[in-house]
């Protein structure tokens, strides 16, 4: 069921009142039933996948938990009998056993993701490298599989690390995996953050419900007015790369930034708004990413939950694992302290960004996109001493408004430039299009009808005004004190703003017959 559909709106109109009308103990059951119903719209095959992913992580977590309990019980039982060394040896053996259980759970869990998502990519690469002609299978990619797989695997690792208590009730655990607002495009939540809220009783409160409602409407505004209007122009540029090269690639960079920002943050606003209406606070996934002054900062503000997932479950474990420590030691001995110290970190960073790219999609453009981000981050890191020297020389510059705006625009353009790989989805084409920006910009084409990119004057005006509105609201709406809270606290203002947003989305949104943009970009991941 797509967020931008009448069916979904009807679904919400039924679900929210039912959620508050049933006894509080049954609220989570309503959410679970609603989530399964919601996902069932993706087809029974997709439903089977999510059931398999849920069962896998649930059963392995139970196994891990039971193994840990047995281990602790045995240690407790033998407290008087065993020496310290014996206890330590037992712990090591038990941990290895639990690690093997974890690995098996992860292999099955990630296998469920990899088979539908990466089989065709792998086979086509094998064919390309070896010259073989293995038939490329066409497998169904269940909606949101990357999100719920990461969420459930994160839980499994947390149970292994004994950071999270294992959930014994299958229905309660299933709700954590299938919770419908975040099922298709995240955020990727942690069990300890989300599950207690999903299971807690909630009362309807005007301010919270209105705030959530406003956030949903704002999300729809960003999606169907901003993103999908920008998409019309983006689509025109992408439909004919030979005509729309040079300066138009720069336009693409700007327009796609508007599109993906409106699309992804809009989708997350809808997710978080629905949750807020239900009394559930899901972690923010964005924190004003386009105001970042550096690439590193940008990645702390954009798709936050994915970034922290990779940091916690890939980068850190990889950086401190035993083989890496051995490699670190070896490289320090053989390559010197400076290089030796860097190599393991670089290796972990490259692997993390390679996987981040691969997570976004099974194609080379995403992998190259991930590695280019990695390259920019590593170069920035290497240049850090120079920056520091520079800022020491000009101590007031960092606070200078002009410099800050320069840094912001530089980061925005750099990220936008790399992001165009996502648009063309073809690495050589993207590189050649980048080239045309410099050797054949074609400025003379700027003032022709071609430069309207398929939009009429009114639509450009709408897009421009919408972007200004989004920018202004974003500026005045920090995550810890959002504007909607202030509006929702005043009932009349809340109703007026909600009504205006409804009419704006209804009339100016690019949705319905004649528009094909109802699906969110991140639903595909």
């Amino acid at each position, binding site marked *: 069921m797509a967020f931008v559909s009448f069916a979904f709106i009807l679904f919400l109109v039924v679900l929210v009142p039912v959620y508050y009308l049933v006894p509080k103990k049954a609220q989570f059951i309503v959410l679970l039933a609603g989530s399964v119903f919601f996902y069932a719209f993706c087809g029974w095959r997709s439903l089977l996948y999510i059931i398999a992913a849920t069962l896998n992580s649930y059963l392995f977590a139970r196994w891990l938990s039971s193994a840990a309990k047995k281990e602790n019980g045995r240690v407790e039982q033998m407290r008087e009998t065993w020496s310290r060394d014996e206890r330590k040896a037992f712990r090591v053996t038990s941990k290895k056993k639990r690690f093997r259980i974890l690995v098996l759970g992860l292999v099955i869990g990630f296998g469920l993701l990899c088979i539908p998502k990466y089989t065709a990519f792998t086979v086509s690469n094998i064919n390309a490298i070896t010259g073989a002609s293995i038939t490329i299978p066409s497998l169904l990619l269940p909606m949101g599989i990357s999100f719920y797989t990461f969420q459930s695997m994160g839980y499994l690792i947390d149970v292994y690390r004994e950071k999270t208590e294992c959930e014994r009730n299958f229905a309660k655990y299933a709700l954590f995996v299938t919770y419908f607002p975040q099922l298709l495009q995240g955020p990727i939540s942690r069990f300890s953050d989300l599950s207690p809220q999903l299971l807690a009783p909630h009362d309807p409160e005007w301010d919270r419900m209105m705030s959530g409602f406003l956030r949903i409407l704002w999300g729809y505004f960003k999606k169907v007015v901003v993103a999908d209007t920008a998409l019309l122009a983006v689509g025109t540029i992408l439909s004919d790369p030979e005509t729309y090269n040079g300066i138009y690639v720069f336009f693409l960079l700007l327009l796609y930034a508007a599109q993906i920002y409106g699309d992804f943050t809009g989708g997350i606003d809808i997710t978080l708004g629905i949750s807020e209406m239900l009394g559930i606070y899901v972690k923010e996934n964005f924190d004003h990413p386009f105001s970042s002054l550096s690439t590193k900062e940008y990645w702390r503000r954009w798709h936050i939950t994915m970034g922290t997932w990779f940091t916690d479950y890939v980068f850190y474990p990889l950086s401190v694992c035993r083989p890496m420590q051995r490699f670190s030691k070896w490289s320090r001995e053989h390559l010197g302290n400076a290089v030796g110290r860097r190599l393991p970190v670089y290796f972990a960073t490259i692997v993390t960004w390679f996987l981040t790219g691969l997570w976004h999609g099974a194609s080379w453009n995403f992998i190259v996109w991930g590695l280019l981000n990695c390259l920019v981050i590593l170069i920035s890191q290497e240049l850090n001493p120079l920056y520091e020297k520079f800022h020491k020389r000009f101590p007031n510059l960092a606070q200078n408004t002009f410099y800050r705006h320069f840094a912001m625009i530089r980061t925005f353009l750099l990220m936008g430039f790399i992001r165009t790989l996502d648009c063309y989805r073809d690495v050589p084409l993207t590189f050649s299009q980048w080239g045309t920006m410099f050797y054949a910009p074609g400025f003379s084409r700027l003032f022709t009808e071609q430069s309207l990119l398929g939009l009429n004057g*009114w639509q450009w005006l709408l897009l421009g005004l919408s972007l200004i509105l989004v920018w202004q609201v974003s500026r005045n709406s920090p995550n810890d004190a959002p504007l909607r809270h202030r509006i929702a606290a005043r009932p009349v203002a809340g109703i007026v703003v909600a*009504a205006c947003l409804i009419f704006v989305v*209804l*009339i*100016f949104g690019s949705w*319905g*017959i004649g528009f094909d943009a109802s699906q969110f970009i991140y639903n595909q991941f």
Partner: protein
Amino acid sequence: MSVRLKRILAAAAAIIVLVLIFAFLQALLVPKYMESTQEGAMIAEYYDEPVSHDVLFVGDCEVYECFIPSVLYQEYGITSYVRGSAQQLIWQSYYLLEEMLERESPKVVIYSVMALKYGTPQNEAYNRMTLDGMQWSKSKWNAIKASMTEGENMLSYIFPILRFHSRWSDLSSEDFTYLFSKDPVTYGGYLPQTGVVPKTSTREGDKLKDYRLPETSMAYLDKMLKLCRSHGAELVLLKSPTNSWKYWWYDAWDEQVFAWADEHQVGYYNLIPSDWEIGLDWDLDTYDGGIHLNLSGAEKLSSWFGKILKNDVELPDRRGQADTDDYYGKMAERLNQLKEKNQNEQD
């Protein structure tokens, strides 16, 4: 006044204001079909009819561009109305007829058979032009359900703003001029075309893979017959004269319709071979190279077909009745004004 009552009143006022804004925006954004694509305004005009009719025509352009009720009245005293619309599919004709038979009791229903070739929903734009003009009833609901193409939904028929919201950037003076009231575009359902584009091609229609008329269409034809008989009306089938490969009536189709009509004791008039007898001149009486008739062609056809109707079916001569004289007289006058205007423009 208690605080609670104040809140209730404020909420009620807010809801009323919202509904009014919604209604206004909907009225503004839906197409008016007054200056271009007038076919979209035809279906709704039926509800303004001040008189009842002895003959009802239903079907596609083969009725609304071919038969002129004022000619039928002035020459034969036949009161008639043409409830046609562009690419009107047979289930749409059926439900339109069902709705009309709830309102009046005609003696004859004439159905144009060309649309029998379509057995599935065809085109969203044509659907809207036929269905949006219908007043809400069970018939409209069923007509929409039967007609929706992929991607369409019932909600957008209930609230047409959901379909036409994107017209905000195409609004023209027409949308403001006809915001609250519309002018009639038809003459008793007849939509005149005054241009002349002679027939040039002698090509015949393309070969088809399957010449069977769709089962769905034939099932609706059965239903239409049952409906007419239950209301005491006689069903007559008609194929208007056309002469273009683009709009070809195949012999195989003709045979199937003829067989059905014979089996059910229903009159069927295929007027294609009668064009010479009607007096049609394919150099003068068509506005699109023989696909459709223009005003002069429609006048000839109406005059000729009225005589057939009068001879074959027992129909009262209503001439001399004050209300019908007045109504069809004004219709003829409007049509004459149009002809004069057209003549002046040509001169």
